[in-house]
Structures are given as C-alpha cells and as structure tokens.
C-alpha cells in the first residue's frame, strides 16, 4: 500500500508538469492561432504567404524535432540557453498555434458570404457583423475539431521528456527500470481520467451550441 501511495504521489508530481504545459499552451496558443489565422487570410500577399509557409513548416514536421530545435539550437549557435520548461513551452505554443490557426481559418472561410452581405445591407458595421453574426457561427463550427486538438495536446505533453522535462512518463520510467511495470499502465489511467473530463466538457458545449441548426 505504501508503494502505491509513493507511486501515486510521484506520478502526480510529474503530471503537474503535463498539466502546466497543457494549460499554458492553451492560454497562449489560442490567441496566437487566431492571429495566425487572420494572417493566413490576409489580402496582403507577402503576409499571407509568410504565415502560410510557417504554418506549413510547423505542421509538416514532428513536434519532437521542434522540441529538439528549440532546446538545443539556441545554445549551440548563439550561446543562449532556455530552461527546459521554457523551451518546451515555446515549441508547444508555436506548434499548437499553427494547428489552431488552420481550424480557425476553416471555420471562418466556411461561413457563407451571404451572412456578411445580409449584415451589410441592414446597415451593420464590420465589427458588428463579426461579433454579432459571424463569431457565434464560427465557434459552433470549430468546437469539434478544437476539442480533438485539445485532447491530443494533453497526450502530446509527455513528449517534453525528450528535453528532460520531468513529466509523468519520465518519472514513471524510474519505476520501470526498477522492475515495476504497473506504474506505466497507471500513467495511462491519469490520461484517461483527464480526457474523460475533457470529453464530458466538450460534449456539454456541443449540446449547448446545438440549440440551432446550420
């Protein structure tokens, strides 16, 4: 029993790292993603091309590689070193912002031109059209794809171990090398519970947004 509590506490300590990466990434990647999505829809071609190229590069390469790059390259080339957590945060935020931006862009571009025009002919201002008519429809469209990303995010946080962030999988490995196998499965339970709560939350939101069709 002592061993169980010991393992639980150690894993929990690791899991706080996962949760920190998860929360900070969400808080920063969503606004950054919105900014990027506007950039990728810009009528100013250089900006649009630039943003789309970045998004393509980030989505086209492994997050694992991005973690290595952010952590090792600055210290090797410019002699600047980030602490592990900062490096992990930079990689995660940029990576997830790129994915979020594509979801936002899809959501925005899916709204028919007629919705904007209907607002225009009724004398509404651009900002009123966006906040009163478009935004809600975009949110409804993106809840499902965004929730998929968010569920993937908590699982991805364990990748931070490759730059030695002491997250949950990293610490459970300590038990495995001692010959203790079950803590490895136990980590799975943490993720399952966490995602179970998220899934409930998202299905509640979807249900709330289902008050109208279309």
């Amino acid at each position: 029993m002592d061993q169980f509590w010991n393992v639980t506490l150690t894993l929990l300590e690791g899991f706080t790292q996962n949760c920190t990466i998860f929360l900070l990434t969400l808080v920063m990647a969503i606004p950054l993603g919105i900014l990027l999505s506007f950039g990728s829809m810009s009528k100013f071609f250089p900006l649009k091309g630039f943003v789309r190229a970045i998004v393509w590069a980030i989505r086209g390469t492994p997050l694992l590689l991005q973690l290595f790059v952010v952590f090792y390259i600055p210290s090797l080339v410019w002699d600047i070193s980030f602490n592990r957590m900062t490096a992990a945060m930079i990689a995660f935020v940029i990576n997830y912002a790129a994915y979020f931006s594509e979801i936002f862009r899809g959501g925005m571009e899916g709204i028919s031109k007629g919705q904007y025009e209907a607002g225009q002919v009724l004398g509404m201002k651009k900002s009123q059209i966006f906040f009163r008519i478009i935004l809600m429809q975009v949110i409804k469209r993106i809840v499902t794809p965004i929730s998929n990303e968010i569920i993937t995010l908590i699982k991805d946080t364990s990748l931070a171990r490759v730059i030695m962030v002491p997250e949950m999988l990293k610490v459970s490995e300590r038990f495995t090398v001692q010959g203790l196998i079950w803590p490895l499965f136990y980590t799975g339970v943490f993720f399952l519970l966490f995602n179970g709560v998220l899934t409930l939350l998202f299905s509640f939101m979807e249900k709330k947004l289902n008050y109208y069709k279309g």
Partner: protein
Amino acid sequence: MLKVEHIRKSFGKNVVLRDISFSLKKGEVLSIIGSSGSGKTTLLRCLNFLETPQHGKVSVGGETVFDSEDESSRKESEIRKHRLHFGLVFQNFNLFPQYTVIDNIILAPTLMAKEQLRQHGFCKGADNMKQAQRMIRETAETLLQKVGLSEKSDAYPGSLSGGQQQRVAIARALAMEPDILCFDEPTSALDPELTGEVLQVIRGLKNTETTMIVVTHEIGFARDVADRIIFMDDGLIEEEGTPQQVIDNPHSARTREFLARFKQFGD
C-alpha cells in the same frame, strides 16, 4: 424617387453592366426580367452597395447616394449612411441561424437605435434604449403578423420551411424602413409549392404602396404585380414599359425570344 444614370460595372475583363439608366416613382413596382448572366442581379447589388460600379450615378429622392465621379461616395462611412435607402431580400434568405425569428428582425434596428441614441440622444421619438427597444419589438411583431408568421416568433430559422424563411427575410428588410425594397429572385431557391406564399406577401406589400424592385423569373407574377417591367439582356436594358407592352407586345426580337422560352414551359 429613384434615379439611376449610366451605371457601368465590369469584373476584370467581363463587362456585366454596359450602360444602365432608369428611374422609379414612389410606390411603383418595377420588375426586372432577363436570362441568367444578363446583369440583373449585379444591378441590384450595385444599388445595395454590395458592388461598386465603375461609372454612374444613383440618387434617391433628389439626394445623390452614389456618384462614381465623387471619390467620397465610395467611403465606408458614406456607404453606411446611404445604403439604408435600400433594403435587399436575397435569393437564399441569409437569415442569421443563431437568432430566433424575432431576433433576426430586431437585431439591426436595435444596433442602429443604440448608435443613434449615443450620437443624437434620440431615435424615432424614443429618448432611451428601453423605449426604443419596445418600439422596435412592436414594429417587428407587426411585421411578422404582416407576413403571417406571428406564431413562429421564437423559432429558429433552421426549423422553418424555405418559404417561411423568405417571409422572415422580407420582414427583416422592412424593419429597417427602406425607401426602396429590392428582391433578388426571391423564389428561385424555393420548392415550387412554396413560391406562392412568398409572392403573396410581395403582392400584399404592393397594396401598401411600398416602392419595390423585383428581379424575378416568375414572368406571370411580374405581369401581375409590376407597374413597369425592364427586360435586360447582356448588360443593357433591351426593353422597358408596362407589362402589357413588354410581355404581351414585345418590340425587341431578344425579348420575344426570351419570353417564348417561358411560354413554351407554360410560365
């Protein structure tokens, strides 16, 4: 009431409106007919400031609302000031799906009232938002009654039939009290059995002396309701006159050809 002079509009190399001039008296109903691609929808969109003509002038009640010579009439703020002379009912309704029927109608008037109260301290006899809101709601309810949908006030557009949605769209456009109400093929997206109810509402508006421009493929309806008909072809007004002149005794060969195709299918 409305005077349109020498409107020209092209998209890139594609010239859609070559030289359109016409005028409209208060309370008159004008119907624009013509084949697809003749430019009738683009003309309506120009009047509603959804497109900017390269050339031409539009005035309403003597006030110039657009003049291609005058750069300032292309400015966003100027356009917003002038566009409410016109209302537009779209082919595919474009109701706001997240709002109930009544909220679709009161959204724009409410925003407008807020702005006017802030700027001028009054709005159509109301000097506070609560009073303005009550007036707007009353107007909206009257309009819903007019289009026969009072009982659908709290329904969402997604649960309505196409015909009902279009009737809500008409009420929504009327709520802004436009001088001229434009219809862009209001029944084209509807199942045939639903067109009647929408045409009935438009007919009802004619009796209230609403000035209207109706772009339509319903030749029979145009003959019934319109005081004047314009037949457009290839960006030009090919023929203009009373329904008797244009539909029953067309002068132009193009008009005859167009109408023959409709008569073949029995309207």
